[in-house]
């Protein structure tokens, strides 16, 4: 069968991928630069018998998809930084109640209303720590449409596997850029469905009693098992509790079910790392620039390599440490005042060798920007 290639925006690639992954319920609120996701969903979903809601704000968008996930649907919402801020309360609810959902945050310049139509990567820490309290989270990103497609499908797969919200951290540049996307054929990327309970009707089903492997089989609302779901600390029945032993067990379960599977979750690409003296670490749109620098320098015989991260949380610290072991220095390329760079410093053995190449004026970081930082590191001035 001939593969279909489309010349489209990143936001459209995200919609194609979500539908490929089995999404059939989406709610959103208009916000630049993510609105195309919401618009395309409104057109596509009714055609497949799915449902689209334009809600009154980002708060209700996330709340409503959590409700729809509970009835057994694959769900998603899309937004940008200010809307993502409003979603933090419900994001914590989804973490606590372990309800699968995908949130696409198409990053723009912040803080506040900031730069609605310009690119940024300033929400890396918002994805990690935006909601209150200790918790674990999964966050994926991509630098090109083919990977964006794959990571979107992975986001759904991981949400269903780990019963957690997954934050898809896109950016204005990738989202609005047009480039070819070859649509994967059916079955080319595996699709994972949630684990459902095999407990028969009339037998006690404990919605929050993890199996030995830490997983919690679900039962759809409207199905044969009636149970309680609450954002309060809860026991195996899903009923609120203040029992210290139960609280201790639940918070550890919420952390461990993701942090202990960091290896399974880690996604990355690497270019020329085997003999690299200088390791660039980047992700999202910035990785395009970093790759350009590495490729052009390699042609001149310089030993540069690139580690492109596609999963940011849980942070792949062991991977970064291993890949940077022989590097003379490490340059993190990102469009913020330094977020992933702090995680890299924590991960490597010698944080003094880690530098930041960034750009925060709304313009896309260029190879010249990165080369200038490298000249400074080498003591050659700009």
């Amino acid at each position, binding site marked *: 069968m001939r593969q279909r290639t489309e010349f489209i925006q990143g936001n459209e690639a995200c919609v194609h991928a979500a539908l490929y992954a089995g999404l059939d*319920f989406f*709610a959103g609120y208009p916000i630049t630069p993510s609105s195309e996701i919401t618009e395309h969903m409104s*057109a596509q979903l*009714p*055609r497949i*018998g799915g*449902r689209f*809601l334009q*809600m*009154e*704000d980002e*708060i*209700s968008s996330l*709340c*409503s*998809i*959590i*409700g*729809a*996930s*509970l*009835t*057994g*649907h694959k*769900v998603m919402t899309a937004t940008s930084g200010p809307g993502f801020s409003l979603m933090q*309360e*419900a994001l914590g*609810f989804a973490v606590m109640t372990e309800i699968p959902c995908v949130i696409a945050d198409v990053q723009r310049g912040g803080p506040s209303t900031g730069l609605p139509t310009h690119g940024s990567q300033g929400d890396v820490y918002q994805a990690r720590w935006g909601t209150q309290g200790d918790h674990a989270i999964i966050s994926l990103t991509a630098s090109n449409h083919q990977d964006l497609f794959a990571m979107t499908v992975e986001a759904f797969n991981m949400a269903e596997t780990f019963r957690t919200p997954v934050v898809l951290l896109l950016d204005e540049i990738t989202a609005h850029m047009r480039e070819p996307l070859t649509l994967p054929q059916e079955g080319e990327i595996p699709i994972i469905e949630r684990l459902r309970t095999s407990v028969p009707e009339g037998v006690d089903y404990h919605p929050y009693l993890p199996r030995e492997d830490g997983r919690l089989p679900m039962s759809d*609302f*409207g*199905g*044969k098992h*009636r*149970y*309680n*779901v*609450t*954002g*309060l600390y809860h026991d195996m*029945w899903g*009923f*609120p509790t203040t029992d210290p032993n139960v609280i201790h067990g639940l918070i550890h379960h919420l952390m461990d079910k993701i942090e202990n599977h960091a290896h399974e979750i880690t996604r990355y690409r690497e270019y020329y790392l085997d003999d690299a003296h200088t390791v660039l670490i980047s992700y999202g749109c910035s990785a395009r620039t970093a790759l350009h620098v590495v490729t052009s320098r390699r042609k001149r015989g310089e030993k540069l390599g690139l580690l492109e991260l596609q999963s940011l949380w849980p942070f792949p610290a062991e991977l970064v440490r291993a890949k940077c072991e022989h590097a003379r220095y490490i340059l993190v390329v990102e469009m913020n005042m330094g977020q992933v760079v702090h995680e890299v410093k924590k991960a490597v053995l010698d944080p003094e060798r880690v530098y930041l190449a960034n750009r925060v004026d709304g313009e896309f970081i260029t190879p010249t920007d990165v080369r200038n930082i490298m000249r400074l590191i080498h003591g050659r001035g700009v």
Partner: protein
Amino acid sequence: MAIDQYLRKRFFPHIWCAGCGHGIVLNNMLRAVDQLQVNQNEMVMVSGIGCSSRISGYVDFHSLHTLHGRALAFATGVKMSQPNLTVICPMGDGDALAIGGNHFIHACRRNIDLTAIVMNNRIYGMTGGQFSPLSGTGISATTSPQKTIDREFDIISLSLASGATFVARTTAYHHKEITTYIKEALQHPGFSVVEILSQCPTHFGRRNQQGDATEMLQLYRQNTTSIGSEAKQKQPELIERGIFRQEIAPEYCAEYAELINRAQQS
């Protein structure tokens, strides 16, 4: 008739204070459900945060205890994704109309088939008796030691103006009306609002010289009357009880099903 078949007895005793009106609401809500013979597997209760919202834990339905003010937003997702389910949303006055005010008016506007029960005790009980947007002026609360200057919402007018297609009000004293109106609301194919004045002797009555639970219930008898009654003509300050609107209009999930048909044909 045994309403205890709808209760999760494992989770009792409940958290409400002695004399709280919310137990009367729960009792009569379950009588309505029982009279309608709704399959429990098709009943979903979605609540927010507050004393009233704890009601969802005690009923043997699918129950979702969510975030402060957000019950209707979660419920909209449940109903839209599975329109065959009957979804009932008990909320407090602060929950529904302060932090949840925006979700409330938009749920009314969509006319989605949810049943909103506003248990209005005019106070934030769980957090210790702060005034709410339903307290009205001249009320003593823990955040109004000099008495409130904030004017109150009228839930009925707000619901009517926002487009709810079933709107009713009663009190914890008029318990048979609770059953009747909730029964009507559950059967109504559209967004329904039932406001139930429910006494909080612990925080409201005690600070505002309304006495204990019995005296507060007596007050509901005295200061309310049926819609359009003679008493209302003579004493305009009386609060009206009854069904203010009951009309059929396009329901959101049904309209969306039509939209799917159109999209699939084109």
